[in-house]
């Protein structure tokens, strides 16, 4: 049982780290600000979601598991909103094309 849980954590966290890595590569390599933003928000939300998923079975109590999920939700909320704000600022400056 514990082996299965360990394997699950390892796979989920590994996949999460992969998405973070992909997002970072995109941040460095993509040509313009809007596509960089797009890649970053997508991969970070998914990456963090998978890391949290992998950590859930290791959270000692239901309360700390809940805290992990709330943490993910808060990051989702702020990163999505900030992406909108950065996008709007780019559009205003005419740098989006």
């Amino acid at each position, binding site marked *: 049982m514990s082996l299965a849980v360990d394997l699950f954590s390892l796979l989920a966290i590994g996949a999460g780290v992969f998405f973070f890595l992909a997002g970072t590569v995109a941040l460095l390599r993509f040509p313009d600000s809007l596509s960089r933003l797009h890649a970053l928000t997508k991969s970070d939300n998914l990456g963090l979601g998978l890391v949290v998923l992998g950590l859930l079975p290791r959270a000692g109590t239901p309360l700390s598991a809940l805290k992990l999920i709330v943490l993910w939700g*808060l990051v989702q*909320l*702020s990163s999505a*909103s*900030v992406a*909108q*704000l950065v996008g*709007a600022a780019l559009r205003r400056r005419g740098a989006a094309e």
Partner: protein
Amino acid sequence: MTLFDALDLALAAIVLGLAAWTIAAREVFSAVVGYVAYGLLLAIVWVRLYAPDVALMEAAIGSGVTGVLLVAASTRLGRLPKAEAPPGAALKIAAAALSLIVAGLLAAAVLYLPDPAPSLAPEADKDLAATGLGNAVTAVLIAYRSFDTMLEKVVLVLAVVGVWSVAPDRFWGGAPAPLGPAAPEAALVFLARILAPIGIVIGVQMFWVGADDPGGAFQGGAILAAMWIIVMMARLAEPPRIGSGWLRLALVSGPAVFLLVGLAGPLMAGSFFAFPAGFAKPLILFIEAFMVLSIALTLPLLVAGPPSREAGP
């Protein structure tokens, strides 16, 4: 070398590299962004040093609120006319030499610490039971070194007075300028509406658990302050008039309640700033609650800056 050693070394290298980049940055805004990222990395360093209280503090105040303050300051600087002459080479060299001497002395002080380094941690732990607290850091701040903490709060209030005092006479008692444009982005308004209620709960919770776990008045107050800042940025609330009696009362309530409890010490427990046995924890939380209020007001008022509108009727 274990894996953790390698990670720590990499972390230290990134922090140093980012610090150098921040100093070398030409644009003020880039330097501020570098400083905020530096603060967040420093918070991770504190976690690695087993100091979660300091880490929370660094992330919330050192990086978060100071970052907002610096962004606001750089925006204001951008609106000013350019300085007539940039600093000369002599001044730059003098500033660099002074910084190097200070950094060198600090490094020497840390490197020449005896091994094991002197520690008051066992002393702090020994009398923890008497305070009724479970977090030794909170015990040091509010019980063992309470006078220092009270004076720190006075300094924060003085900082607000200092910011207010640069206002022109005709604006005295008026409100600072709004923190955002008249029509804020819809996404910002959405974020402020959703985040602020959650953030208020988290801020109060962080203050409350500070008695036994990492957290406390500073960290909780900083989160509440951030919520007020974001609500003002989204124009859901406006900066208050600085002439408001309630605002001033709430601002000084933290140090004032602290001082009153300290002055009651000789009557209740036999000495200045002493807490009566068995009643220490409620008193400490009582003081902290008012400190949270003071901190949550002080930081946004520093960001909002001096009043720039007439007091009105």
